């Protein structure tokens, strides 16, 4: 962000800190009734220490409330979408079958929730939508207004509903995380109570505001709460304008809010490790930084390693890639975009390298395969530990040398010569050294060509989808490696993990 843009954000913050936040309080009786019913139901379930599907339903109801209260979607539309109601539909018959064995308070609570849901499902237009529309209609014509909505899956519906309320008036929908680095606009509209922002790690929307006026559309039955102005002192809070007498400060209650998605561990995708399946014995471990990526993926980055991150510009509607920069693992932060090879990266390099080697490619490759195959056979027959002992090295080194992704040991005299002795290829040593030299040089050139090509194709590319969906695949038209730009959603603490897991994009456990 340049000096002028930074200054604009400072000016916005100055206005927000001086004038306060603006509340548009709306009455939503159907949702308020549902909220009361679900809270009472949760209380009775907890009182009777029920578990399993009962708790699952409570969690699901939290999501229903959040979606209706904090988006301008029609409840009738939301309830007709299988992707949103799948869990409730699965749970309802299960729980109905168990109702006769539970306490009557749980039973009546369940019935009340179902009734409230039925009423809610018939609502065609919500006070939240009307409230937001009323706000946008008041804004100056031609002003730039941003509406922040977390779930990109409901954007189309939200856009359609708001457009119906204020035909012809402009607004843009953004994910809150997109607004961390965004050019200044005129008005920002947020849904839900302000206190919630802090628990969603979104207090930057107020502390570093993209607009001089920040409006909240809040249902009257929700707790407005307080928002500290600074992380350094809790006592100074933002002034809330437009909060009527009826909205007394109520202690915030996170218990009734949906939990943010928190992956518990990294698990290997089935078959991902099959290339090394013949290797037995304990793994070597290393210290690595786990990153939770968008799209349900994760990666371990070696403590001393690094990653390519894409630096994007802050255009009005796009996020053009300006450049690619390599950062150390410890410099990676949540919200950054990282560039990872997800398909064919290593596979393409030999192809390009062979084209550079021309006629020599066949001979060079044959020599490489010859010693690697013999070493792998030896390891399979004698065991990897025994082979490692013979070569005075670690089992991990032997694994690496057997792998087709590795050309040869770094130090040829110290390591390759003993390998060739072991596998009966010592007379070939001078030829091997020559071939490895050519191969390394060709691989290096190929890697650089592919990388340069990729960077060229990335420059100027709109990476907004990566911010919205959590990832964006970049396909090289020339057939190079498939790269994916991932949004870093969480940086976890350093862990001691198997070296085999490091540097691979892994599926995350739900």
């Amino acid at each position: 962000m340049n000096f002028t843009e930074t200054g604009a954000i400072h000016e916005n913050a100055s206005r927000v800190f001086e004038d306060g936040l603006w509340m548009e309080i709306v009455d939503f009786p159907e949702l308020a009734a549902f909220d009361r019913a679900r809270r009472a139901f949760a209380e009775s379930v907890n009182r009777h220490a029920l578990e399993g599907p009962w708790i699952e339903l409570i969690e699901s109801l939290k999501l229903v409330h959040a979606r209706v209260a904090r988006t301008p979607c029609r409840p009738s539309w939301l309830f007709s979408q299988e992707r949103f109601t799948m869990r409730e539909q699965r749970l309802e018959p299960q729980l109905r079958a168990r109702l006769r064995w539970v306490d009557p308070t749980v039973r009546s609570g369940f019935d009340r929730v179902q009734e409230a849901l039925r009423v809610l499902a018939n609502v065609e237009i919500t006070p939240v939508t009307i409230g937001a529309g009323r706000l946008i209609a008041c804004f100056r014509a031609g002003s730039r207004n941003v509406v922040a909505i977390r779930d990109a899956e409901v954007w189309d519906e939200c856009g359609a509903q708001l457009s119906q309320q204020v035909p012809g008036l402009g607004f843009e929908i953004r994910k809150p995380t997109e607004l961390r680095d965004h050019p200044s606009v005129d008005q920002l509209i947020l849904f839900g109570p302000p206190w919630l922002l802090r628990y969603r790690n979104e207090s930057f929307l107020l502390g570093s505001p993209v607009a001089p006026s920040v409006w909240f559309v809040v249902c009257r039955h929700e707790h407005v709460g307080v928002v500290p102005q600074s992380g350094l002192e809790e006592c100074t809070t933002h002034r809330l304008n437009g909060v009527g007498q009826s909205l007394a400060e109520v202690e915030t209650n996170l218990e009734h809010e949906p939990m943010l998605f928190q992956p518990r561990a990294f698990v290997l995708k089935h078959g991902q490790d099959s290339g090394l399946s013949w290797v037995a014995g304990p793994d070597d471990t290393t210290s690595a930084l786990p990153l939770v990526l968008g799209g349900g993926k994760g990666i371990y980055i070696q403590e001393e390693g690094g990653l390519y991150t894409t630096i994007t510009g802050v255009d009005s509607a796009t996020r053009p890639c300006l450049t690619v920069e390599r950062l150390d693992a410890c410099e990676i932060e949540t919200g950054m975009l990282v560039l990872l090879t997800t398909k064919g990266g290593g596979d393409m390099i030999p192809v390009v390298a062979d084209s550079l080697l021309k006629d020599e490619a066949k001979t060079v490759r044959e020599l490489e395969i010859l010693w690697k195959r013999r070493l792998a056979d030896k390891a399979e027959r004698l065991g990897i530990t025994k082979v490692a002992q013979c070569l005075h090295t670690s089992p991990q080194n032997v694994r690496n040398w057997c792998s087709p992704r590795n050309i040869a040991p770094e130090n040829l005299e110290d390591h390759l010569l003993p390998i060739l002795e072991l596998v009966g290829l010592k007379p070939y040593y001078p030829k091997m050294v020559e071939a490895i030299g050519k191969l390394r040089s060709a691989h290096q050139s190929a890697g650089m060509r592919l990388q340069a090509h990729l960077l060229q194709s990335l420059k100027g590319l709109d990476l907004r989808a990566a911010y919205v969906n959590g990832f964006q695949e970049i396909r090289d038209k020339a057939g190079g490696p498939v790269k994916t730009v991932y949004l870093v959603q969480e940086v976890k603490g350093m862990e001691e993990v198997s070296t085999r897991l490091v540097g691979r994009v892994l599926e995350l456990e739900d």
Partner: protein
Amino acid sequence: MPSEHEDLEVTLLDIRQTLQNNDGLSDGSTGRLLSPWAEALVKLGFTFARALELHEQSNATLAICLPRIEFAALLLALGVIKWKTSKASPKEGLERLHALVGTWVSYEHNGVTKVGRLDQVPQNEDGYVRILEFKGKKVPNFEDMSLEERKRYIPPKSAGLWHLVESEWWATIKPVGREFDDQRGAPAHQVARIAGAARNSSIVEKLIGSGAEYWLMTSREKPIRIIGCKSRLDGELQEDIPLADNSGTLKLIPMLRPAGSEEYAASSHIWVGSCTKMQCVDPESICIIEGGRLLEDNLIASSRNSRVVLLGRNAPSYEEAAQIVKNAFLHRSKEFTVNCVKVPLHIKVLSFIHK
């Protein structure tokens, strides 16, 4: 008997009162050259450095919580430098020129900015200042030439030339702050840059104070260590910053003079490094640390230094970084107030003497 920390606290409060009374003591203001937020950061740097120096403190922390950290570290460093230049006595006239003998200077001759080495300064204003200008060709060694050869020698236009500068042009003589090769002189593109910088000198003087340029180019004080996102900070140093009155732009690099750049090797005032590279630093250096995931490590590495910690509210690790600062505050040795300037409401500060 009050402790030295208490003394510092009292003095900082005194400074605040003095500034509020507006008795003419400089508060680090740049005369509305910059936007209010930028001005506030320069003032904070200025006041912090002044308080530290007056009381020989080297273990104070000033945490600043602001919407974004872009440009903040550099503007604070500018404030610190402004304090340093303000306490250096400005040298005027001949005294100033005598201090420059033997150094490379820029000067105006017939309306053109030139670069040469200052060779001689007269004792009074009746004489001439002698500057040896190199224009790209090697100057012949006259001692190796015979008398006949010397007589026949006609200096080529592009060789070394003595310029005798009259007193009316002396004010234009300014140190360029770097050395050139005696044999090759200053290349044309460098002279053009220096000429451009000379035109900006009035802005620099307004921003940092009169006589500041000389200090900037000759001071050998320990550079301020800025720890943060190096690539972004390098970009900010080079950026053209629009002046508040839209009268032009300004670059921070000639004032802050980062170490590691050949051009500013002689007198650099800041050292910019990545947060991953921070090690224990010279206690005399002020550190400006951009808060991030490595803040805790960086605070440990700078525990013998006075430091400014910047907390950008848009940073993903903001809450965590703010908590780290609050923990350091809880375990402080002593607190003190640095709210001695009118800081905008959206910029929050917390200051204390750290352990």
